[in-house]
């Protein structure tokens, strides 16, 4: 099960869907944040391309960004 991401998170994990091909590494590194849909693509319930990241998951999110084989993830500060 994925936990509902924190509403007051300062970081956003951006998914570039044009690059993502559903390898699923991010969902293994961030199981609390990301599940997989029926085709294998990452999904965070209630969120689309920008997923709020709770502070405690920031290191794992950075790891997911660094390890994504498709370079489909990026982290940015919320405006």
């Amino acid at each position: 099960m994925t936990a509902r991401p924190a509403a007051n998170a300062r970081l956003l994990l951006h998914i570039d869907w044009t690059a993502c091909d559903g390898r699923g590494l991010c969902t293994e590194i961030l199981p609390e944040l990301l599940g997989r849909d029926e085709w294998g693509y990452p999904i965070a319930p209630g969120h689309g391309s920008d997923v709020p990241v709770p502070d405690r998951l920031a290191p794992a999110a950075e790891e997911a960004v660094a390890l994504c084989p498709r370079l489909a993830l990026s982290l940015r500060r919320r405006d």
Partner: protein
Amino acid sequence: MSPVTQAVRPTVAAPAGTARLTSGRAPGFGSHLADFGPIPSLVAEGLLEELRASGLEGRGGAAFPAWRKIEAARARGRSRGRRAVVVGNAAEGEPLSSKDLTLLRMAPHLVIDGLLGVATTLDAGSIHLYGPESALPAVARALAERPDARAIDLRPSAETFVSGEASAVVSALAGRRPVPQDRTVRLTEAGLNGRPTLVHNVETLAQIALIARFGAAWFRSVGTATDPGTRLVTVSGDVASPGVLEIAGGTRIGDLLGFAGADTAALSAVLVGGYHGAWVPAAGFSANLAREQLAPFGAAVGAGILMALDARRCPLTLASSIAGYLAGETAGQCGPCVNGLPAMAEVLHRLARGDRNAGLPAEVRRLAELVTGRGSCHHPDGTARFVLSTLTVFAEDVAAHLGGRCAKDHS
């Protein structure tokens, strides 16, 4: 309200009534100058102020305030010292829309005036006009008629549904596939070759050309406070006289259908906003074509597209065909769209064809929710919106299908 700048001094009388963009007698430059007068030389602040006061919103679908996008590109260009790119967008990938093509054939010089006016305001480094092959001869003729338009680069657009999406337009201009890009910054910050890029719909540009001449107060003298001015709409479907009309902002939907020769008593609903839009049922025909009155139906004015549906035709059959078309128009880049849209269309197709599995509507809804927000453009969102609206507005037809008793025309 009076014009906020004295720079506006029309030399010919402003068009009266609701024929404005369509009031010219002929598309040629001579006729254009006689009908509308020369484009006034406004300083940048003057045009921006006038546009802000006019309340003009983009006519390409997103309804973003026209001045704000210009201002954003201008501020970015100044702070970075990079000259802006200005693009007139006439790529109507939406099969139900033909207003931009009609405008380019009827009044190409209004579009060119608007393009040049905005380019001057931004001190743009390049100016492009992107539109379908079928519109280019009329535009090329118009460009050749005037000495001030040589800098405009005319580019043919792709004929795909998503080709008019702003980042797809920029991709095409950069020589890449005309498909949407993943974006984390706005095009007005970094678009074509990293330059601040302003993409305005051609009707928006033509409206700008009129506001530059006749002022914000004149613009607002027709339409409503929240939808000022006129707009072009394309009416199709089960009406006697389908085509492009210029109407006052906020016109009643029923009146609008009447202008196109519809027998509104014979219609079950009208699709508003095109294939990415939502249905307004006959009971809602008294609503105005305006944001706040369309919101309860989940609809928006969008690019001014209306498609009427005769009450004898099966809405699920039609919707299934449209959903299938939209699934085929995925740019093929984003997994949830590539996989989700065909899956959603297939379930809707089963329902339309008479499969009485009671779980089908819930499965359509689940897939619609699954794809929404999960693409680099709004194609999945718009397709989901259309499909969900179909299930909601035509709930009785859904029940009839599940009960095996839909007696409507399924052709």
